[in-house]
């Protein structure tokens, strides 16, 4: 006799039959029927129709039957709130039962029923249970407070349950303490401002005591809570660490990782000279390694966290390289993570082992893994200089295998190696060229073309090679096209005599036959450069390139510090701070590592500040980009080209001659005249600023006569966007809306490839043009951009109405923020209503749509008000003087055609204005009022 019998009911009238059985007089039959109902529930069948019948079975002495009915109630009470009320009496009665198990069960179930009417009845029983003599009931009740708070937060506060919960932190039973902490943390998370978990040395002490005695799950709650505490000095930090370290030996990996989080965080406060600091470092390694022998799912989460830990404190695991070696039957998600950590740990000491392993992996079956392994070899070469030679020869061996994807990956990484160690490994170029035909991936093709262009003078048939690519120019991806353009220009500058035709061909392909603006722009710029000043062209195109830095994908130090505070959470698995998900930063407290504070005077406080990755050693070192950096786009980055040009030999003279003849005639024949203004601008100064100057010019004129512009506010702090800071404001001039942005690069690497998108919003605001950042944004550089907007985008009502959610992309990542735009940017110029029309409309709009507001502290007279408002497209239609008060009647129209009518009352001598607004869409009134406020007060 097994439970599977409950699944086999006759199809016809199943519910009907169950109903009959539930109402049977026989207890046993009833129980069997409830079991059948539960069985149906487990497979997702809807049995809510049986609600009244099941609830009728609730009053029973049989505990199993009672539990089953409770199970049912939890699932379906929400869909039958009126029926659920029938159960309340039994619940309340059960909360008084002499058996603590039943008391706890009742209060627990009641909390799970998310029906308002029931929660009202829950308060009294809950209050009793929180003070129950039995700790089992108390601990269940503690969790119930969190449940209730989730349903009705106000009720919980009004009833004083929070205070009771806080008292439970001092309970004698560790299990009760753990649950109270868990409940309070949950409540605190939904109210970050409330100071619920008021942590002080006394309460910390209580928590640490409970930590030793409560269950493993309770330990996790307590450790996570401890991690939010900031000790007052290093002594306190050390004493907490000492009491937390035993948790590292716990069998439950979640406990271990939570303990690691606390230790990693508090270690920040300890001086590195301290013996204890070293001890702690040593103690952290074994538990982390042990996590890797657990089930693969646990391994994965552990590896993602270890990835953060080795970036923050590489010394912890520096001797443990071998545990990250990949086993062939590891799941792929574990393999990829292990590989990542291997590279992070690679150093001169272990590079031989690492390379041998990587080479082994490159012959595995899984393509993704093999590719990553090949890339890893390249990263090792860049990271560990001494190993570069060995890495290159390993890569060459791999190229000899002729396995297509291996060859392509190898070429991509060799390109990076060339950029790191120029003029060192060019001997391998011949081998690379042999594989030219097999390259079918854009990235590999682009890399190969870059190599050919860069070393054109050493490759005899460079022109033939490039020409062969040129044949299918239009079928190539943009990446390859751009690269081909640059490479051929390089080739031309190096070997001007033979390649004249080729360069003309590519320039015309890029500028005339392409509809890609990037490609066209680059083509034109080269063209102009070559035609106006070949010497400058040479200086620009063949300028010495900055070296690429070693660590390519390190997490930004600020972000890393934040993520360290989130060890063990989903944020740590995704390597994104929770704040990256949350609108406008509301409701999220940024966590940061505590500053190092010494209780006694010690010398190392100054060195406390930079704890993250070391700053780039040379200002001109930039990390390699995902794509090949266009040489041209680097032009404002490279070291200043000074002194006399490279050579004044006959070759160069030849080039000049040639340009004089060839290109000019070319230009002449195609009737192309480049706009002269752009040329000096783009040559003399970084292009980005040059163009934004132009923008400033136009916007500067408009601002004078346009509506009020708020000062720029920071919309996206650098901390949340890997170093990109965005501040901005909105303007409206002469009928056009724009978003004035200021982008600042506070990261260590160059930012390129900017783009912007808006989410659908209430008024259909959308960018009217792409975000134009013309030059890469180098560290500490700021650009100002005015982004024209229109209102023809998709419309979706937002909360609040003027909320605008924006996504900005650059080469690093995509970032999101939201901002509120002032409504007056939407007031259109033809918002002046006819007098008669105004009167009719005013009457026509029902009075419940009228909203009244006070504008305080605005000592302006009617004329001043009127003219101020007019400049923001709020038009005064009529003015009346009633009993010494000035009444202004005004109208405005929004971009989507909504009219707003206003009556503004100004009393002489009274700085408060009264504003009455009438509109068919009353939800805008509040925002129109805010617009009035901003305009009048500025």
């Amino acid at each position: 006799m097994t439970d599977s019998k409950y699944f086999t009911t006759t199809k016809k009238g199943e519910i009907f039959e169950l109903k009959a059985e539930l109402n049977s007089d026989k207890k046993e039959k009833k129980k069997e029927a409830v079991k059948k109902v539960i069985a149906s529930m487990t497979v997702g069948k809807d049995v809510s129709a049986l609600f009244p019948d099941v609830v009728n079975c609730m009053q029973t002495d049989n505990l199993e039957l009672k539990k089953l009915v409770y199970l049912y109630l939890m699932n379906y009470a929400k869909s039958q709130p009126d029926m659920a009320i029938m159960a309340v009496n039994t619940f309340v009665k059960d909360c008084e039962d002499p058996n603590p198990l039943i008391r706890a069960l009742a209060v627990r179930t009641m909390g799970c029923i998310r029906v308002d009417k029931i929660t009202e009845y829950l308060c009294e029983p809950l209050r009793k249970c929180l003070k129950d003599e039995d700790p089992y009931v108390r601990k269940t009740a503690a969790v119930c407070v969190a449940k209730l708070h989730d349903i009705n937060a106000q009720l919980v506060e009004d009833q004083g349950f929070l205070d009771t919960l806080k008292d439970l932190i001092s309970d004698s039973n560790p299990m009760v303490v753990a649950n109270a902490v868990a409940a309070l943390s949950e409540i605190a998370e939904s109210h970050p401002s409330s100071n619920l978990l008021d942590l002080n040395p006394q309460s910390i002490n209580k928590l640490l005591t409970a930590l030793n005695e409560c269950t493993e799950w309770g330990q996790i709650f307590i450790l996570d809570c401890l991690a939010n505490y900031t000790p007052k000095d290093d002594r306190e930090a050390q004493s907490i660490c000492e009491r937390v370290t035993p948790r590292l030996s716990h069998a439950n990996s979640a406990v271990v990782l939570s303990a690691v989080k606390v230790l990693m965080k508090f270690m920040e406060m300890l001086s590195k000279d301290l013996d204890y600091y070293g001890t702690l470092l040593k103690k952290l390694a074994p538990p982390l390694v042990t996590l890797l022998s657990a089930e693969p799912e646990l391994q994965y989460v552990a590896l993602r966290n270890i990835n953060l830990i080795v970036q923050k404190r590489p010394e912890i695991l520096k001797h443990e390289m071998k545990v990250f070696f990949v086993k062939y039957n590891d799941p792929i998600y574990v393999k990829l993570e292990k590989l990542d950590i291997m590279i992070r740990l690679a150093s001169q000491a272990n590079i031989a082992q690492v390379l041998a392993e990587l080479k082994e992996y490159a012959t595995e079956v899984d393509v993704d893994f093999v590719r990553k392994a090949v890339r890893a070899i390249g990263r090792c070469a860049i990271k560990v200089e001494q190993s570069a030679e060995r890495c290159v020869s390993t890569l060459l061996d791999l190229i000899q295998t002729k396995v297509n994807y291996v060859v392509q990956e190898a070429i991509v990484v060799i390109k990076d190696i060339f950029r790191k160690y120029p003029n060192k490994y060019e001997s391998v170029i011949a081998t690379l060229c042999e594989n030219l035909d097999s390259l079918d991936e854009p990235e590999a093709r682009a890399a190969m073309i870059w190599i050919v262009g860069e070393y054109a003078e050493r490759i005899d048939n460079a022109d033939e090679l490039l020409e062969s690519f040129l044949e299918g120019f239009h079928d190539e991806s943009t990446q390859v096209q751009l690269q081909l353009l640059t490479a051929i220009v390089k080739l031309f500058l190096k070997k001007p005599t033979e390649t004249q035709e080729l360069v003309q061909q590519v320039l015309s392909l890029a500028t005339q036959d392409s509809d890609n603006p990037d490609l066209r722009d680059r083509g034109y710029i080269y063209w102009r450069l070559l035609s106006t000043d070949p010497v400058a062209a040479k200086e620009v195109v063949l300028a010495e390139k900055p070296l690429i830095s070693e660590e390519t994908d390190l997490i930004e130090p600020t972000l890393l510090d934040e993520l360290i505070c989130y060890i063990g959470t989903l944020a740590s698995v995704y390597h994104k701070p929770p704040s990256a998900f949350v609108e406008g930063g509301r409701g999220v407290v940024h966590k940061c590592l505590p500053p190092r504070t010494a209780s006694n005077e010690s010398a190392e406080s100054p060195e406390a500040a930079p704890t993250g990755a070391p700053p780039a050693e040379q200002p001109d070192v930039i990390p390699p980009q995902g794509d090949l950096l266009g040489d041209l786009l680097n032009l404002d980055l490279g070291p200043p080209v000074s002194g006399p040009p490279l050579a004044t030999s006959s070759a160069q003279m030849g080039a000049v001659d040639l340009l004089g003849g060839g290109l000019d005639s070319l230009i002449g024949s195609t009737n192309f005249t480049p706009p002269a203004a752009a040329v000096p601008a783009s040559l003399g100064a970084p292009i980005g600023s040059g163009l934004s100057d132009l923008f400033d010019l136009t916007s500067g004129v408009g601002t004078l006569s346009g509506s009020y512009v708020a000062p720029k506010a920071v919309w996206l702090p650098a901390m949340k966007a890997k170093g990109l800071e965005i501040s901005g404001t909105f303007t409206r001039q002469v009928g056009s809306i724009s978003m004035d942005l200021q982008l600042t690069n506070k990261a260590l690497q160059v930012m390129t490839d900017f783009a912007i998108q808006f989410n659908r919003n209430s008024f259909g605001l959308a960018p009217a043009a792409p975000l134009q950042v013309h030059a890469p944004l180098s560290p500490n550089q700021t650009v100002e951009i005015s982004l024209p907007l229109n209102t023809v985008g998709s419309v979706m009502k937002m909360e609040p109405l003027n909320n605008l959610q924006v996504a900005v992309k650059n080469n690093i990542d995509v970032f999101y923020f939201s901002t509120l735009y002032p409504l007056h940017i939407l007031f259109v110029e033809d918002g002046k209503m006819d007098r008669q029309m105004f009167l009719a409309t005013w009457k026509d709009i029902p009075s419940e749509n009228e909203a009244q507001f006070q504008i305080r502290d605005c000592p302006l007279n009617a004329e001043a008000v009127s003219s101020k408002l007019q400049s923001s497209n709020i038009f005064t239609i009529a003015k009346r003087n009633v009993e010494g008060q000035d009444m202004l009647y005004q109208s405005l129209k929004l971009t989507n055609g909504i009219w707003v009518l206003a009556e503004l009352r100004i009393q002489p001598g009274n700085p408060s204005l009264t504003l009455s607004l009438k509109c068919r869409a009353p939800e805008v009134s509040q925002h129109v009022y805010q617009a009035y406020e901003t305009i009048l007060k500025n």
Partner: protein
Amino acid sequence: MKSLSDFGFRVIQEYFLMCNKYKLFFSQKMIHSLFLINCSGDIFLEKHWKSVVSQSVCDYFFEAQEKAADVENVPPVISTPHHYLISIYRDKLFFVSVIQTEVPPLFVIEFLHRVADTFQDYFGECSEAAIKDNVVIVYELLEEMLDNGFPLATESNILKELIKPPTILRSVVNSITGSSNVGDTLPTGQLSNIPWRRAGVKYTNNEAYFDVVEEIDAIIDKSGSTVFAEIQGVIDACIKLSGMPDLSLSFMNPRLLDDVSFHPCIRFKRWESERVLSFIPPDGNFRLISYRVSSQNLVAIPVYVKHSISFKENSSCGRFDITIGPKQNMGKTIEGITVTVHMPKVVLNMNLTPTQGSYTFDPVTKVLTWDVGKITPQKLPSLKGLVNLQSGAPKPEENPSLNIQFKIQQLAISGLKVNRLDMYGEKYKPFKGVKYVTKAGKFQVRT
């Protein structure tokens, strides 16, 4: 280079869905729902601790499963527009939990494994059939294990007092007497300072047995040298002692144990100061400690493999030849040897002759399994023969790794030895025993 179109509204919409998710994040905690899914993709059980989440959420899981090709490669954390799915794969079943909050994923994974352990413990196996047969108990258990996302009772001892495991006898008795399998008193251990042990335990034969089990994880390279090796050890206990015994277990060479995870019953301070395991044991079977002897210490490798696997260029066959021999086996017999090899995809069939044992080759999964048995040093077992490849296909690039299983009785390869077991607090004399066994864990030989 990402083009602007890559980063269009889809991204933004995903982001705003994320926002919504986060709003939920702050209102709901921990595990929201659990789905059990078998290998053919049927959802055969669902449990919701809060509101009901539609089964359709599992579509994201199925999508990931499809992408992963192999069941073992399904990523454990999957992000969906409104939820996170955290799953484990155990005994051919997927335990998929639906999460709406920022929660420690390890917490969830550990809990899911605990659920699977509990099923195993209650029903003898953790299988679809066993779960379906006991669906009501399963439901009661899940309800007892988690409340509002907070684990409530996960200790097997406590659970068994709340909900009695099914036995044939009990179900017969229940059906006659109408009594139930739900305990109606509060478990005694639940709130005591030793929550893992119930009071009033009584046995006529008092016994305490310990199994020291060590597994060798190793990667051996082509030439036979060790790339990586470590020992994963556990001490599993079976304690049937009356009353409240207080045990002390000491070792001859405790210094071997420098990376240990303890059962909560162990007094950590005693271990720190005296290197003695002192504890009041749970009743029944449990894992006392697990430990790791790392690669820095020398790990003995008990077997060696000679191998030669080659494929000829432009011909549809290859040669296969492996021989196994004992290495550092400390004079004990190595038994239960099995070799499994994932052959490359182009292998059609294998024609082999074993000198000992039997072999099978599955042409679908391309897995070769050779059941060797014992090694007798006089005549080393070997497996030789021809490999048939798909004609016309290029010679395989990858070299298959050999996965080796073996067992050595009465030996802990790390050299760990129990010194003595003392009991305090009770007067009777218990039977005591220690068993040692060494096994291959993830033991791989590259070719």
